């Protein structure tokens, strides 16, 4: 337990609103979307057409699953690329060369 605490304290701290911060948040969003996708939540977006994802699931539950998927999809497709682009722009502004 104490080892874990020690490792965590040694982990480099990512500065809020830094290039690395944006890049990490972007990757996290993409990762969360991947989990939702692999969990099969895509099927439940059918609630948008007023249809349940499967006969054993209520339309309300389909709506919840589908909404989670849509939010994470938009996070991955719209927000994550913006965060990663912003990270790249910050690095450019900060004059950090790629790979440094």
């Amino acid at each position, binding site marked *: 337990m104490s080892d874990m605490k020690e490792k965590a304290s040694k982990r480099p701290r990512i*500065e*809020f*609103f*830094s290039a690395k*911060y*944006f890049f990490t948040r972007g990757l996290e969003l993409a990762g969360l979307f991947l989990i939702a996708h692999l969990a099969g939540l*895509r*099927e*439940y*977006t*059918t609630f*948008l*057409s*007023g*249809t*349940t*994802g*499967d*006969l054993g699931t209520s*339309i309300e539950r389909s709506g919840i699953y589908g909404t989670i*998927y849509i939010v994470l*999809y938009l996070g991955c*497709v*719209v927000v994550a*690329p*913006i*965060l*990663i*682009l*912003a*990270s*790249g*722009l*910050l690095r450019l*502004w900060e004059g950090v060369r790629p790979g440094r």
Partner: protein
Amino acid sequence: MKGEQEVKKPNLWGRLLRGFAALAAAAAIWIPSLHFFFTRPVGEFRRAGGLSPKAEQLAARHLQLWTEPELKERELGRMRVSNAEWDFMGRTFLVWSLAEMGLRNPAAKQDYLKVMDQIIDETLRLERERGMYFFLMPYAKAGPYVVQPARSLFLDSEIAMMLASRRLLEEKLEYRPLLKERVDLMVAQMQRGPVLAAESYPDECWMFDNTAALAAMRMEDFLDGTDHSVFIHQWVVMAKRKLTDPTTGMLVSSFTVDGESLEGPEGSSIWMVAHFLRLADETFAQDQYQRAKTQLSREMAGFAWSREWPQSWRGGVNVDSGPVIPVFDISPGASGMAFIGAGSFGDDDYLTALAATLDFSGFPSRRAGRLKYCASNQVGDAALLYAAVLGPLWDRIEKAKP
């Protein structure tokens, strides 16, 4: 220590400022570019001749449904939980699509005919055995139909169009009296109302179904040499006078038997209405399409959609509109129907932008050459398939016009 804090504070504000500026710049780059990842040439969705890749993939999925009974039961069952009408409309859109596909791809005609007959026969059997209410929403039983005996033009018009579409692809004599019977019944029901319109639900006439009835009449005229031109002309004159919204000039979507408007113009109705009207009065159809385009179509950052209502009128969200997304007023139901309008009127720019939106937000799922849109359902996908293939049937009928 105090000195350190004084040094850090401006750093944080500076970082926030730089961060927000970077986010704003990144958004300004990414958001207008996003559509490039989803925009495809219009030929990917719809082609003048033959079948587009998407039409083939969508059709493969639907043909699978009608050859695997368990899958079909599951898909139709999911829709019937919300709306029994969708079960019916999924069938009609698919039969109309297969007729168009048979004309586009004669090599596969016999395969398509087999499925078309299967759908038509099963639909007629269900209507015969379980009655018209089987395919209607429960409120159909809430009151008596004004015109007796009770009939729903929703079923009659679309069944007539299914029969006619099948016969247009290849004659089937068995269906000839069935078509005549349906068309005669529709004309009789419509003539009994003061505005030449028949009910789909008790004292509720739908523009969608009344214009579908006109299209079915024109199809029968083409097939069997009947002549409904006088009735159709009278109907168009009446509709222009009594069934248009005074602000937009668009046809209203539902009204009473006496012609009193129930719902104003709606995107989930008008795009299809304009398509049906092409067989009744091409000029009026063009006029309605252009009005719908002005009032309902919206485009932003390369993506397009349809509103359910014009700015001047707002109705309630219902099963036809789907859940309307606020601010942008995006209606999934209206946007699906807009594909049919854009396809019918050769509006490739709008169709391309609609297709980009569909691929962005419709959550396509491809397996073994079969395509479905997860955000849609069987009837939605069948309507998209129809938009991707419609054309040859209407062209044949229009060319034969005197």
